[in-house]
């Protein structure tokens, strides 16, 4: 053990050694996890869904979800042992020694409790002698909320999403714990709010010498905040080290794949996803869990899990072949779009206005929106939640009736409702939704789901539609055997491909993509974006791509339309708009979007 590591031991805020959490059936969800976090340090715990990162985060509070338990290892926070204690002893430590900031503040704050009272409850439990009023107001001030009684008397629903998350952070800090575990605290927030919260966390940990474990799937966010990174895959930490080292010279092929999957809005690049699908808890192999997806595997990898190996001081990797992991190549900037959009307009939206209305008030979701889209072109609608981008997509798909304005397909004005449109019009416009788990009927086989549009909109017979299904499944690179399955048997990435295949079965001219990658893991997102690019090249498909993620937009769109509160703010070719934004709002979006500093030039570090 190096002197460095021993020094770390003495004052470690969090120390986890050999942690194992297993299901009742004995399968390990998390295995052999060891981390240490010093006071004032942020550890980014990174992993895709199913990697065990949340299980690890909860174990830091001595907690295991119902149906699972901590069976091995120790968790120590500021010298307090959390493993092997009774529930009562743990309760006394949680909140006082280590506290938790959950992902969704809207559901984790009690809606019936004034926020001041919610904060005071923490004090009542852990520090009954402190003056409650004073501490509550002081803590509100610490997270930059108004430190006055009027604000403390508000209910959670009277706060914005960002304010709500500040309240949960305040309640995690009010008893002055040594460590805070944050589980994707900014995932549900807009980029602008996210960037403010990240600054906040950064300031707080410096001021209070907090040890922070920041759990997320988003490496770009981690790059913005973490000192050290631990990458999890299939329940184990596959690589850990300083953020700088991991992001610039990853040694595990999985880390490398993850970083290469992340789209970037400053240097738009061709994304490379990781082939294959992450293994589930019940199908983890004996050897290295990454083996089936790995490009540098050897026979030994399959036989036993690789041990943790030191690459350098405080940089460990769990890979036999880490020495051959290629260096991160400087991103090849995307050339001019390979798809050649024609000049003929396919879709024109003229002064579109859409609103949601109750009997008494109407909320205008989009107003005076005008744009056009050529055959084969990809236009991105970008904006935060509430910008109206999804409403516009729904109007075009015939799911929401505009209150004013026109939508023209070719020269024909489209009816507001899909039902009132002609068969041909319905065929030419297809929509893919955000949540893949929701967009396929769970009671229907994939083949029936895909064959339906081909039969209804193209008049195919059952047999023709069956052949078409095989074709489009191949197009979206899914094996034909999936056709007989039900949606519940597929992963999120596979489901989204099926949803795209269903749209393709109609042989459309325009694909409306409503945030179709935001529910996916980055490595899967990269593959889906790659697929969309291919479809544009091969089929001449036009895309209306709705997204809040500028990096994603940069890697796929020809043109961008920036929306704010239902108004179009700025429109232009992607490259020009991202490099030289004209509008204040666009600039704000760009500055707030987290990104990984460029690996090639070491000088550019730290200023991102």
């Amino acid at each position, binding site marked *: 053990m190096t002197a460095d590591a021993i020094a770390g031991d003495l004052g470690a805020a969090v120390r986890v050694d050999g942690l194992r959490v297993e299901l009742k059936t004995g399968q390990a969800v998390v295995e052999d996890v060891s981390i240490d976090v010093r006071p004032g340090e942020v550890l980014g715990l990174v992993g895709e869904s199913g990697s065990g990162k949340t299980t690890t985060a909860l174990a830091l509070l001595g907690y295991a979800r119902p149906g699972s338990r901590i069976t091995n290892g120790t968790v120590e926070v500021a010298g307090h042992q959390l493993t092997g204690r009774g529930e009562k002893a743990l309760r006394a430590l949680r909140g006082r020694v280590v506290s938790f900031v959950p992902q969704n503040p809207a559901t984790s704050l009690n809606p019936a409790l004034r926020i001041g009272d919610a904060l005071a409850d923490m004090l009542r439990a852990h520090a009954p002698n402190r003056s409650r009023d004073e501490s509550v107001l002081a803590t509100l001030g610490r997270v930059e909320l108004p430190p006055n009684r009027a604000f403390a008397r508000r209910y959670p629903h009277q706060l914005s999403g960002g304010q709500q998350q500040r309240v949960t952070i305040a309640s995690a800090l009010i008893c002055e714990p040594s460590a805070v575990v944050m589980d994707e605290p900014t995932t549900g927030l807009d980029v602008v709010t996210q960037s403010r919260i990240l600054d906040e966390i950064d300031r707080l940990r410096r001021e209070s010498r907090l040890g922070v474990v920041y759990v997320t799937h988003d490496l770009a966010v981690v790059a913005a905040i973490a000192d050290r990174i631990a990458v999890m895959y299939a329940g184990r930490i596959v690589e850990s080290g300083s953020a700088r080292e991991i992001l610039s010279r990853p040694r595990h092929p999985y880390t490398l794949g993850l970083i290469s999957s992340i789209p970037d809005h400053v240097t738009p690049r061709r994304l490379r996803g990781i082939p294959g699908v*992450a293994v589930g808890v019940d199908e983890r192999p004996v050897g290295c869990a990454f083996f089936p997806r790995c490009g540098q595997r050897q026979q030994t990898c399959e036989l036993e899990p690789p041990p943790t190996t030191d690459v350098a001081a405080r940089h460990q990797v769990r890979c036999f072949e880490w020495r051959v992991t290629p260096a991160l190549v400087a991103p090849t900037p995307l050339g001019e779009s390979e798809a050649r959009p024609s000049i003929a307009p396919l879709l024109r939206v003229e002064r579109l206005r859409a609103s949601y209305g109750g009997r008494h008030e109407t909320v205008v979701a989009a107003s005076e929106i005008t744009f056009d889209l050529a055959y084969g072109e990809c236009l991105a609608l970008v904006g935060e939640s509430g910008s109206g981008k999804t409403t516009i997509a729904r109007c075009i798909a*015939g799911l929401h009736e505009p209150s004013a304005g026109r939508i023209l397909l070719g020269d024909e004005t489209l009816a507001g409702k*899909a*039902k009132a*449109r002609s068969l041909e019009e319905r065929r030419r416009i297809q929509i893919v939704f955000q949540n893949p788990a929701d967009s*396929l009927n769970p009671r229907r086989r994939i083949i029936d789901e895909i064959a339906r549009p081909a039969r209804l909109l193209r008049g195919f017979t059952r047999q023709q539609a069956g052949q078409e299904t095989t074709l489009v499944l191949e197009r979206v690179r899914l094996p034909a055997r999936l056709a007989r399955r*039900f*949606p519940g048997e597929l992963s999120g990435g596979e489901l989204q491909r099926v*949803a795209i295949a269903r749209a393709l079965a109609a042989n459309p001219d325009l694909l409306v993509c409503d945030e179709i990658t935001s529910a996916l893991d980055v490595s899967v997102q990269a593959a889906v974006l790659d697929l969309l690019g291919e479809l544009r090249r091969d089929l001449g498909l036009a895309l209306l791509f709705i997204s809040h993620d500028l990096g994603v937009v940069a890697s796929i769109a020809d043109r961008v339309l920036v929306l704010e509160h239902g108004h179009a703010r700025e429109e232009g070719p992607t490259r020009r708009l991202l490099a030289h934004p004209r509008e204040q709002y666009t600039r704000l979006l760009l500055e707030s979007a987290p990104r990984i500093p460029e690996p090639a030039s070491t000088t550019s570090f730290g200023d991102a």
Partner: protein
Amino acid sequence: MPEALRFLRSGTGGVGLVLLVLVVGLALIGPFFAPHALDEPIGLPYASPSSAAPLGTDELGRDVLSRVLWGGRSVLLLAGIATAIAYAAGLLVGLLAGYTRSLLDPILMRSADVLLSFPALLFLLVLVAGAGTSNAILVIGVAVIQFPQIARIIRSATLAQSTRGFVEAAVARGERTAAILRRELLPNIVGPISADLGLRFTYSIILVASLNFFGLGLQPPSSDWALMISENRSGLTLNPWSVLAPAVLIALLTIAVNMVGDAVARTQEQSALTVGRRS
């Protein structure tokens, strides 16, 4: 195992189905094995079990066993048909109201609420008083009482499903309303339906039994489990079997229906939950 039979994997589903088959089988083929005629006195009233009458005799000295074997058909038939009619109407109204969310919704639901506001038994008594006692009136009355609550459950289940992506995809394809209801919505509300169905059937049996108890349903000498309980309740201490045997069978029938319904509902929920879990 086919999708439809997956509920058997849970213990309660299998036990429930076996019970259900036994009780329904007894009700259907029982009459062929009845040792005595339905209305033939074979001994003293409320005699204890003997070799001639294994379950003793009832208030008129008739064989309890024979009457039990005869008495299941009407319970199954009347309650079953009433539940089926109520469900057919409830499904149609609930699906339409929940899916369209148009003017149709308040109109359908408020008129269902009007029905809901009548006390169930009072409504049936008035109906029977006005239209006379007949099995058809009985069935329709019970169905009308059950219908509003069924429509409400179906409507709220439909409402929850109707904003999901696959329904919107069907709307964007321009599918007919009937196709959306049948293909997209109906299969996805099977869970709440099957949990509710058992309960409704139980309630139908209770309603039919109540009417029989008041003498407004089936008329003597026909045999019916519910009717037997009301006929023989005064002789409970003399020959407990005359009340216990039909009561136990009604209980078994309703328990079996509910066990199967719950098991189906559970498997439906589970399979819906697994969607998108693996990623």
